[in-house]
């Protein structure tokens, strides 16, 4: 596994030392989960949800009052009700 490439996908900065330390641990985990490969799963259907219960639908009634101020309270930086992030376009 290319640890730095995966870290880039996961948007986690890793120093080279961290990557070097993580690499054997992640290899060990992958080697362990590779035990699944020996099992013939042929046409077994995958389970994404433990029960076969149908997803329930709720009545289409708007019940979402504006709570912008409360919801933005925990944000690191806001302005005029917007989230502020570093400049994206030069």
């Amino acid at each position, binding site marked *: 596994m290319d640890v730095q490439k995966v870290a880039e996908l996961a948007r986690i900065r890793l120093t080279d030392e961290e990557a070097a330390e993580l690499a054997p641990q992640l290899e060990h985990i992958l080697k362990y989960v590779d035990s*699944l490969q020996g099992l013939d799963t042929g046409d077994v259907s995958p389970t994404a949800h433990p029960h076969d219960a149908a997803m*329930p639908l709720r009545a289409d009634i708007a019940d979402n009052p504006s709570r912008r101020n409360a919801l933005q309270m925990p944000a690191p930086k806001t302005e005029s009700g917007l989230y502020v992030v570093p400049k994206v376009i030069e």
Partner: protein
Amino acid sequence: MPFSHLHELKSQLDGGETTASTLAENYLKRIQTHNPTLNAFVHYDDKHVMAQAEASDAHRAKHGPRALEGLPIAIKDIFCSTDSPTTCCSNILKEYVAPYDAHVISLLREAGAVLLGKTNMDEFAMGSSNETSVFGPVRNPWNIDCIPGGSSGGSATAVAAGLAPAALGTDTGGSIRQPAALTGTVGMKPTYGRVSRRGIIAFASSLDQAGPMTRCVRDAALVTSVIAGHDARDATSVADAPVLDWLAACDRKDMKGLRIGKPAEYFIDGMHPEVTKAVDAALETCRDLGAEIVDISLPHTKYAVATYYVIAPSEASANLARYDGVRFGHRCSNPADLSDMYTRTRDEGFGAEVKRRILTGTFALSSGYYDAYYRKAQQVRTLIRRDFEKAFEQVDVIATPTSPMPAFRLDEKTDDPITMYLADIFTIALNLAGLPGLSQPCGVAEGLPVGLQWIAPAWREDVLLSAASAFEDATEWHTRTPDGFDTVGGAA
């Protein structure tokens, strides 16, 4: 006090022998005395606890008692609550105060419960020893050099040491049952879909479920009867789940006619011999109570841990993508650009185990590996589910050890992630199958508590509660308490 059961306190309150304020004061005193050693609570606010207790006493005087009126309950720091921080014991949420209550927190408040504070846990519930918390490890009251199990280690220790009569935990791969076993308490993971996940910080959405941690089986039923139920705002909360009378199920005193499955795959080499002995003795007790012990096989058990360590990290890597320094939580200082902000925020915010799991999951879901890892694991998950379905054609309930070993020492298993992952070898399969499970004390190994795990078909918590109540009635294990915690706050 200090080791009172929730239902005993309820009777005392209802009988006018004590008040919510007195109980709150006593438990706060115990927390102040013992928390510096145990590190079970990460946030509590005396004044706020007393205010809730006084409000409860006032409600009782004016309107009469609600289901949990005046009863103190500790909350794992993974449940969003508006009146305290909710940090998941992570740096990335260290300052976070949620703008809404988790559904189950609302239900507890509406039932009159007094929330004592937030308990320590493994960071984002990822761990089996409570050593990955940014607030430091929790100690096991039975031996403070040992871990309490995890991830709900703070809740387990709080109940075991009598700092709270009951607590809420969450269980993704054993995080309620394993710490309950290691601290001599009762922990129940309800059927997936039974309890709303809304406002519980997500780890692995297809596995996470909240449940009670208590000193006896009846208390687990009491708390579950309040927190269970359909919530339209959680799409995986099941609307037409059959509900049985769980408190009535706890009146069962025998096991006549009960067919208990004993799966060969859960009694294996490498288990602590005293654990095997304790669980075998427990099954003998069940036989004396009238149960029939049936040897069964769950052949795909050996794949459960590997399946879990693909599915749980994959779902975690998706769930934890939200911690990007934009809407809540930590943001690194002086980011050079957006990418620098994301990557440094997440590097600074997440601990080593959380990073390992995010990276494992990101890899398993990445292009070219998805079928080999994630899809394969989902297929094996089906096989594990079918094992249980087949077993339940033969038996009513399954009994196993909760953990292959008693509590281990701090730092004993932190070097190699796989060794730690194997601590959950007996608890993981039922999360994959979505089934309910309960752990209760059934013996000792090296002087430390041993847990007996019950597994029932989906929606049959009543079967777990009946079997566990009959066992509890016939044994004394649940009455044992750790030394050194029986003095402060003695008079209720």
